[in-house]
């Protein structure tokens, strides 16, 4: 027999080892099916459930949204005993008195105008009507004091101040944009006098109806804001002029800017709040809740689920068109230096990732808000930040429907509760 060389023997051993390694590496790893048979070498700790009564303060806050924080405007009407009448005002306090001719040269004073109209962009997600509805535009400018007061403005919706109207056949054929023709003569008079143009919008319908318009957003005038368009002469060679919302009253310029668009809840049937936690409605309210959750649930466990359980009671004035109010939970980020709860609620943020919940205002029973991200966010907030939550309607100020929930003053079984599901941090890995 020919002796094997050292190199060949070594090669044989190394090759065998490589074969074994290769076989091992190529083995298909399968799932841990054996875990289901109770053979898992390590099992995750079981999820523990507990329910707390951690709410130490809850209240409904009125006066919201603050002026200028209303991206949409509601026009609503409902005839009958529980009649509803919500109007809006859009202010154009900078109507030009002259225009620049397209061919150049000095500006020309406006004496006659043509094709004057206000363009309104509908928020179709909040527009509900079944039959034809009419949107009327009124001149609601007044020199009287209190030109932002609802009653003062409501009294100006008179036939002699009617600027124009447009009828919408049905939401399905209307589209997103509505052009409401205004009186050319009335507008020309405003231009000549350099007067303010403040347009009051009202919805007229034989049946319950609701139209939601885009107003002036928080960021300012944008592509969907109301805008007045006119031709500064009656022939066709002149380019149309656009007038954007602007307001010079009331008060400071900053406050005045907030009143470029204003909602006017002229007639809103409602019950008193009592001890209820009210969300939405007109005038709108939002809920502020402060919690005292044991620190161990914030710092020492792994939260899987955290649910705020609120018991709803049916709203006393349901609107058949409002089948749902979408509620957005927000984390309060203001420290305890901010003692005004309404102001603190303005510093609430949804950035922690809290999901909205749509609730039927006519319903009742327990409603569950997922707040697990809120509790996780509390871990990172400064210790002088109240563990608080704000619940507000996404269409706050632009939806008549409201939600009512029992507060901590209600019977024990109806109070707000917090249900936590968590995994204790144990000696994970120790068999």
């Amino acid at each position, binding site marked *: *027999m020919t*002796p*094997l060389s*050292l190199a060949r*023997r*070594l090669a*044989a*051993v190394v090759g*065998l*080892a490589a074969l*074994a*390694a290769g*076989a*091992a*590496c190529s*083995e*298909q*790893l*399968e*799932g*841990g*099916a*054996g*875990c*289901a*048979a*109770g*053979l*898992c*070498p*390590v*099992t*995750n700790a079981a*999820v523990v*459930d507990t329910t707390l009564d951690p709410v130490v303060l809850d209240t409904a806050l009125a006066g919201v949204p603050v002026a200028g924080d209303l991206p949409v405007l509601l026009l609503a009407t409902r005839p009958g005993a529980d009649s509803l009448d919500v109007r809006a005002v859009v202010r154009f306090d900078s109507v030009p008195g002259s225009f620049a001719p397209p061919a150049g040269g000095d500006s020309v004073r406006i004496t006659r105008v043509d094709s004057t109209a206000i363009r309104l962009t509908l928020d179709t997600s909040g527009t509900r009507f079944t039959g034809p509805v009419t949107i009327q535009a009124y001149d609601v400018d007044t020199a009287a004091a209190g030109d932002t007061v609802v009653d003062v403005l409501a009294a100006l919706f008179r036939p002699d101040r009617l600027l124009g109207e447009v009828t919408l056949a049905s939401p399905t054929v209307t589209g997103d944009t509505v052009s409401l023709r205004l009186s050319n003569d009335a507008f020309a008079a405003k231009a000549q006098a350099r007067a303010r143009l403040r347009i009051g919008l009202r919805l007229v319908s034989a049946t319950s109806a609701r139209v939601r318009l885009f107003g002036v957003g928080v960021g300012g005038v944008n592509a969907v804001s109301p805008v007045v368009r006119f031709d500064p002469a009656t022939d066709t060679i002149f380019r149309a002029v656009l007038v954007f919302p602007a307001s010079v009253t009331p008060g400071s310029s900053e406050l005045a800017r907030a009143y470029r668009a204003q909602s006017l809840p002229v007639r809103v049937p409602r019950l008193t709040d009592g001890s209820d936690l009210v969300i939405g409605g007109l005038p709108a309210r939002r809920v502020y809740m402060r919690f005292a959750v044991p620190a161990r649930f914030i710092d020492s466990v*792994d*939260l*899987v*689920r955290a*649910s705020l359980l609120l018991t709803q009671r049916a709203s006393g004035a349901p609107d058949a068109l409002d089948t749902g109010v979408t509620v957005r939970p927000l984390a309060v980020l203001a420290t305890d230096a901010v003692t005004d709860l309404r102001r603190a609620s303005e510093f609430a943020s949804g950035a922690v990732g809290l*999901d909205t919940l749509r609730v039927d205002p006519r319903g009742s029973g327990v409603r569950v808000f*997922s707040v*697990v*991200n809120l509790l*996780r966010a509390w871990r990172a907030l400064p210790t002088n930040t109240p563990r608080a939550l704000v619940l507000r309607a996404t269409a706050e100020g632009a939806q008549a429907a409201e939600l009512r929930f029992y507060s901590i003053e209600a019977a024990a079984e109806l109070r707000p509760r917090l*249900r936590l*599901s968590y*995994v204790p*941090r144990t*000696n*994970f*890995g*120790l*068999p």
Partner: protein
Amino acid sequence: MRRPVTRAALAAAGVLAAVAATVAPAALRAQSSLGLQGFGYPAGQFSTRAQGTGGALGEFDPVSVVNPSALLEFGRTFAAFQYDPEFRRLTAGSVRQNNTVARFPIIAVGAPVRRKYMVGLSASTLLDRTFTAEFADTARFGDGTLAPGRQRVESNGSVADVRLAVATQPARWLRVGVSGHVLTGENRLVSSRRFDDTTNFRRIDDSTSLDYTGLAATLGLAATPVRGVQLAGSYRLGGTLKTSRNDSTISTGNAPDRAGIALRVDRVTGAVFALAYSHTRWSKMRDLGTSALEVHDATELSGGVEALGPRLGDFPLLLRLGARRRTLPFGVGGARVRETSFGGGLGLPLASGRAVGDVSLQRALRTPQGGAGPVADARERAYLLSVGFTVRP
């Protein structure tokens, strides 16, 4: 011209190898298993050669980390390492699962000192705890909500046994060895639980590292009362064994004691027969785990033969056969786990006897003893391949 291997180089290699064994004892992953419960699977601390005889030659084998007196068997400098992949199949009712795990269970070096002594340094795997399990699971919450999702648990690492041993021969018929053991290593564990509904349920991820530190000492003897018959015995006394996390001790127990005896008969030309028995008090580790830890003392009985085979060149092949039955230390579901294995191996002398390549293959069956439900029906079959290489310059 062959380049000599110096003792210093071997020592350095040994240190590096020991570190490697501690840090990365396993390269591949496995999942659920009968043998991987508790603190892990006891790899046995046997060399490839000893495994070829079912472990029966372990008390006499210088590479096996059992009896320090066996260091004298080579009588000269050596270095050894081995690679042990395992291919196993678990069946439990309708569940069938194939797993693979790879181990580097022993790296050892040894050298004579002052002619009368032999010193050895080794790193070996005492308990291997490497697995990954990912499975579908539906969590049931207190309000009756069912939340389907997936769970994953993963562990990498082992408890390693770093041994410094010295052996001597005070009489022609007697060999004595003592060794000190540092038990060290870590388990790096990862756990995650995620839910299909990510809106209402948050994913949980957790990771931790368990560190092990402990001590043990072994006394080993080997006697030759009559020519061709050798008796060997060893006793390992386990000291304190601790687990810690982030430098904080979380549990304290004891390393397991082990007592073993073996008989080797070398009266037939070209063949060596061996029988071995050992008992390991794994229950001393009970306080190391939680109250749910199922730990049992284990006995091990093995028998095997090593014989000269056909010649390849100037040296003969070594053929080995053996069988072993033992109880695994960690049970599951109220059941102990018994492992029965049989197999064989080859030894290929290389380089004029200055190196040996060994291969062994064992077929193992692991069965629960007792228990109820799916655990009682579980069976695990495995092929344990071992490839070892020993250099004796």
